[in-house]
């Protein structure tokens, strides 16, 4: 292991994954009892990605979840009660009932930025977080996720392009769970590996088995170090499978049965249990203690949520504008003089090293040939599936000095 994990940490990874799963299972029950106000999404089978990536961050780092990243929120310090109350639209929820699902955050303590439903929007937003963190001298990394489907949005491209040109310390995890609602990846993008998108932005990328929590952790940790060292953004593609429908209402009959079977055999939690046992990192006693703890925490927090009131109607009219002070003053971790004139002053001119010509010394050089037949078959043939996380490849845009 490049980034060793202590026994406690490996047990903790299990705790979060299992908590993630049990919590969502409990919410399915609540959904069937009509206690969830809106829709309910599931990250069944994808827990290793949320937990493994978030676990590689430090407290000072920032993340922004998507709907299937409940596990990451738990790792960052939110509790099951936050998830329950959000879904049940209670006054005690992080948004006081104003929004649902994982649409919440915490600027002050936990460094979590709220998503919105519009896929892709978080990439530019977290690019801004990463840029601002660097500007303030905080040495923080910003991490967010996107689905295979969401990686086709304009916001995703704009955000990645901006983060690349700024060499922002941003990690974007593409959770390739093979489906975007009812549409398989092959109908969205003619490439087998979505990590290939990184080449177009000139950023580093890597592919990881998304159902192997240790591999996810290792890959992310490496990306975090790169980012922290100022080497620019990283795209990590985590291969996995969505094991339920898009949301509770969707029976997902369009998913081939064999595909479900294939991925069921690779369940990240069952695999990790075997890993812990094989490596003698735990025993039955430890396991049952964890399970008991999880059950207790979930039931307590569910009770808390169910006993919480709905928000008072007048709240609907409040807080359209922020009238008070900012809750989050800028935290400077570098001398402010550095960004003030005259120290900040520069010559307003470009240094251009590459004059943009072609490498043909004599006129009449051969034009580049176009390869592939437009179906993407060539690209698919060229890229093999990757089982183990390869080293993070670097292709850095030149920094501006």
């Amino acid at each position, binding site marked *: 292991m490049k980034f060793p994990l202590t026994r406690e940490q490996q047990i903790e990874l299990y705790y979060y994954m299992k908590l993630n799963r049990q919590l969502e299972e409990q919410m399915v029950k609540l959904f069937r009892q009509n206690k969830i106000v809106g829709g309910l999404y599931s990250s069944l089978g994808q827990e290793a990605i949320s937990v493994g990536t978030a676990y590689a961050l430090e407290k000072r780092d920032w993340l922004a979840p998507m709907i299937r990243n409940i596990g990451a929120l738990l790792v960052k310090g939110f509790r099951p009660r936050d998830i329950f109350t959000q879904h049940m639209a209670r006054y005690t929820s992080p948004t006081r009932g104003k929004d649902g699902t994982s649409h919440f955050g915490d600027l002050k303590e936990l460094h979590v930025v709220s998503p919105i439903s519009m896929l892709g929007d978080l990439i530019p937003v977290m690019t801004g977080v990463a840029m601002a963190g660097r500007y303030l001298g905080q040495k923080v990394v910003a991490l967010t996720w996107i689905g295979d489907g969401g990686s086709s949005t304009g916001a995703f491209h704009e955000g990645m392009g901006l983060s690349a040109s700024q060499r922002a310390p941003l990690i974007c995890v593409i959770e390739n769970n093979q489906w975007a609602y009812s549409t398989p990846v092959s109908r969205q993008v003619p490439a087998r590996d979505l990590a290939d998108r990184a080449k177009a932005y000139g950023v580093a990328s890597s592919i990881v088995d998304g159902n192997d929590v240790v591999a996810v952790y290792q890959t992310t940790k490496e990306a975090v170090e790169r980012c922290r060292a100022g080497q620019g953004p990283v795209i990590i593609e985590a291969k996995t499978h969505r094991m339920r429908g898009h949301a509770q209402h969707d029976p997902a009959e369009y998913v081939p049965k064999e595909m479900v079977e294939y991925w069921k055999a690779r369940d990240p939690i069952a695999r990790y249990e075997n890993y812990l046992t094989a490596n003698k990192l735990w025993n039955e006693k430890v396991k049952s203690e964890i399970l008991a703890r999880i059950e207790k925490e979930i039931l307590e927090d569910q009770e808390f949520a169910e006993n919480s009131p709905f928000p008072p109607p007048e709240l609907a009219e409040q807080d359209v504008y922020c009238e008070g002070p900012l809750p989050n003053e800028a935290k400077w971790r570098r001398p402010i003089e550095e960004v003030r004139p005259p120290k900040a002053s520069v010559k*307003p001119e470009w240094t251009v090293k590459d004059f943009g010509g072609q490498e043909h010394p004599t006129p009449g050089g051969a034009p580049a040939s176009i390869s592939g037949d437009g179906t993407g078959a060539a690209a698919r043939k060229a890229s093999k599936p990757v089982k183990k996380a390869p080293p993070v490849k670097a292709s850095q845009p030149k920094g501006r000095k």
Partner: protein
Amino acid sequence: MAQVTFLEAIRQALFEEMERDPTVVCLGEDIGVYGGAFKVTQGLLERFGWERVIETPIAETGIVGAACGMSFMGLRPVAEMQFIDFIACCFNQITNYAAKSYYRWGAPVPIVVRGPSGGGVHGGPFHSANPEMYFVHTPGLKVVYPSTPYDAKGLLKSAIRDNNPVLFFEHKFLYRRIKEEIPEGDYTVPLGKAVVRREGKDLTILSYGAMMHTSLEAVELLAKEGIDAELIDLRTLLPLDREMILQSVKKTNKLMVVHEDTKTGGIAGEIAAVVCEGAFEELDGPILRVTSLDTPVPYAPSLEERFLPNVNDVVRTARELANY
């Protein structure tokens, strides 16, 4: 007191705010070495450096999204749209991300999105827009549209210091055509407050942006005819200064609205509703509108002239209203 152009006033506001507060940063396309398409940001890079004058790819969603993220870290980013028409490309980031953030999860988004707007310079359908009403319809935003150098500077400073997302429309026709003496150094003009440009008792004309100047010309002509019009500059469209509007209507009992934005869904309609709800009994005539045509902004000078309201339109409508 020095005479400065509308453009120079805006530049001064940026300059002084960046000088005053290191959390203020600018981002946008070509705003650094080149100083911006209209040179509004000229000199900023030289003084404040690459970290605070951030040149971006052509990615309006990227720009505004990043501004939102920066604001969560305690910065006050000012994002430039090269032309305000391109704000359509980041509609989602503004209306869904920025506008709803504080209401939803208590995270304020103190950003400014500014850029050159408006027609009259033969910019054609994509470089002449007045897209303010898309945003006036969005709770959580503030929308500012100044008409004088003094206001432009003072309002931009307020916008930067405000803890909410503010859209700041700079009418490009005014950039170099309007000059005014403004005090040196720091002052602000509050958001959400209209101002009476000329007192009158016969009727009220509400306007903003470049049409303020058209209306002013009209008011002077009307005075010669014995029509004493009150002219109010809205300055901020959201939140709207309802109080001043109603006050003036209660005094003059007649109201017309002049704007360069197209007619259907323009702010005149909203103002008419506000007045009907708040001062219907006071009205001695219909609420009339002088606006652009309900078409895209056409390119040819002859077409654009037809499209835009002019002094004659304002005078004619005011006469009609005065005769009620």
